[in-house]
């Protein structure tokens, strides 16, 4: 009996000690997190005031060094606030709209000197200044006392959750949404880019569910005998499509086909993998035969990456004006390593087909363009999207440079008309 009592007392003491230690540890962690949140709230608040000042400063100058400095401040501060906001457990809707506004403000300010008429820039900043001031005031009310660092996790959640908080975060989200629409409406090119992304421009006639299935069976006869179901995209989808799921023998997967035109968006199958690796040349031949038979006749091989069970191959569309590759119009293929069978096809970018304009091509002397140690190994023409979202014809140069005894390889894209460097990418 005594032993039992001793054991029971010992167990209670041990459990109490363990609970106490765990509770202390949890409290320490919560305190650390609370301090971190408080710091981020405090950072965001003080930087919001600085941002307000920076925006006002741009209204002082027409153009020049002072103006440039203020614009850079706006870009830096908006990016800093974005980081603080991203690390806080804020209401998701508020966080989304706030990040969007800051991103647009920073981008507009950074690119303003190249793209915007100074009068228009002033007008936008004047409006943004009023909105940021108002936002700053509302943010102060919303986050009052939060920077003290002594709130519990439950209290943080209560204060920042759109549905539980006493502060109207949803109202603030709605205000920011309005500011975004008034200060930074979508530009023509952004709007156009979105439309393209959403595939709304496809004007092809609609295909029926049966026609979509027939296409699937024609392109992938090996896996299309056992279709599980065919559903339609939900009303919120930007472009309507059929979603076909299949499970044929060992292969399980899906294919998405657009309703307009019956174009394949993507196809992917999962199946057990075997041993062995097929020669890459044979895989390419097999893939290219498949592409040709499937009607993708205007694409050329771009690159391949080998992984444990499959090769991922990339093909790029070639346009007719200059025989230039259109880097945004690609098709990705996943082929099994053991036998080259097509495991996946992604043509979503290819069917979005970029709208291209002709453009002058001036000759550039690469010897004077690059440093003397740079060697140009290959030159070809490509269409590529510049930072403003516009497709430009560019020279794509594969250049090498000796770097500490090793050879560094870069792809440099240079606008054929303006000589501007659109992109420089180091190759692995």
């Amino acid at each position, binding site marked *: 009996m005594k032993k039992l009592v001793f054991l029971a007392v010992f167990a209670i003491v041990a459990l109490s000690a363990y609970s106490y230690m765990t509770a202390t540890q949890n409290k320490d962690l919560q305190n650390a997190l609370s301090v971190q949140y408080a710091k981020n709230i405090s950072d965001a608040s003080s930087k919001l005031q600085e941002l307000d000042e920076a925006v006002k400063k741009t209204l002082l100058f027409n153009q020049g060094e002072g103006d440039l400095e203020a614009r850079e401040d706006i870009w830096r501060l908006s990016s800093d606030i974005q980081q603080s906001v991203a690390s806080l457990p804020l209401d998701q809707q508020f966080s*989304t709209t706030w990040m969007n506004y800051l991103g647009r403000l920073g981008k507009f300010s950074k690119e303003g000197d190249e793209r915007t008429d100074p009068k228009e820039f002033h007008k936008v900043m004047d409006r943004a200044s009023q909105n940021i001031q108002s936002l700053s005031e509302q943010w102060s009310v919303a986050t009052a006392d939060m920077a003290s660092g002594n709130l519990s996790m439950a209290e943080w959640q209560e204060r920042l959750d759109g549905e539980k908080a006493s502060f109207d975060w949803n109202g603030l989200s709605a205000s920011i949404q309005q500011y975004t629409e008034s200060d930074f409406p979508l530009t023509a090119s952004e709007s156009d880019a979105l439309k393209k992304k959403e595939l709304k421009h496809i004007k092809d006639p609609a295909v029926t569910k049966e026609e979509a299935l027939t296409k699937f069976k024609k392109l992938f006869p090996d896996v299309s005998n056992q279709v599980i179901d065919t559903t339609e*995209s939900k009303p919120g*989808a930007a472009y309507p499509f059929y979603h076909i799921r299949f499970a044929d023998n060992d292969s*399980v997967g899906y294919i998405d086909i657009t309703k307009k035109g019956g174009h394949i968006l993507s196809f*992917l199958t999962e199946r057990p993998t075997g041993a062995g690796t097929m020669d890459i040349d044979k895989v390419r031949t097999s893939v290219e035969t498949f592409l040709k038979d499937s009607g993708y006749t205007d694409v050329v091989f771009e690159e391949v990456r080998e992984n444990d069970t499959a090769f991922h191959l990339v093909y790029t569309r070639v346009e007719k004006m200059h025989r230039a590759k259109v880097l945004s119009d690609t098709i*990705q293929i996943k082929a099994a390593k053991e036998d080259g069978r097509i495991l996946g096809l992604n043509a979503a970018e290819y069917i979005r087909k970029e709208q291209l304009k002709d453009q002058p091509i001036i000759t550039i002397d690469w010897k004077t363009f690059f440093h003397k140690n740079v060697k140009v190994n290959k030159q070809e023409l490509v269409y590529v999207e510049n930072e403003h979202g516009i497709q430009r014809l560019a020279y794509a140069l594969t250049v090498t440079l000796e770097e500490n005894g090793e050879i560094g*390889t870069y792809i440099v894209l240079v606008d054929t008309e303006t000589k501007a460097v659109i992109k420089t990418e180091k190759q692995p």
Partner: protein
Amino acid sequence: MNKTMRTMLIGLLFFVGIQLSLSTDTHAFTDRGLAKGTKGDDVIELQARLQYIGFFKGKIDGNFGSQTYWALREFQEKYGMPVDGIAGTKTKKKLTSVSSYDKKFVMDNIKAGKEFTHYGGKPLTSQVKGGSTTTKPSTNTQVPSKYSEDDLKLLANAVYGESRGEPYEGQVAVAAVILNRIEHPDFPNTVGGVIFQPGAFTAVSDGQIWLEPNERAKEAVIDAMNGWDPSENAIYYFNPITATSKWIWSRPQIKKIGLHIFCN
């Protein structure tokens, strides 16, 4: 007896001769051609042999990248072969005949994650960086250049933590949503930033993100990194059975995969 001995001796010499002739053959490599984008033990051998004779100065890691490509072209040019940057039968045969490859040395050092080189003309033991210097072990996975191995690892953790019970398509879709957010102005622009945004993913909140991901989750991430997006450009997804946020129901829905609804 003498005749038998002589026959055996001739047979032995013939066998040794065959073996010697085979030792300069390409049998050390696999039969396949090696080109930019391939990977594996045969690429390790290619790099090690090219380094042995001074053409390849990069890290021997088994990934046929640009450095290997230029080194191979230089080798082909030097030995009067067609210059195409592809290691076919003839190139491998020539390379094998003019270089040496210490497979054990190379493989042991790769496994141990040590920094080393494989140049000819100096003792191999002196080509391993001293002390306990090690490099981060490579997963030997090839992803598009805008992503890193750390991105792959973190994404695989997130996909496994969020959707390990979902169909493969659903796992690729979860990875694609994370990648779509990186491109979207409303979200942080790094993999870590998106995944660890407070409240964004349940697996982060409940710690399941730290479970060891399986190969399936990793492959789903590789497919998403290579462009597949079964979510059709979604930036949110939720499980209608467990979702508590009213706001998420207001998002325009695109499609349902497994238990998740994907939306804009």
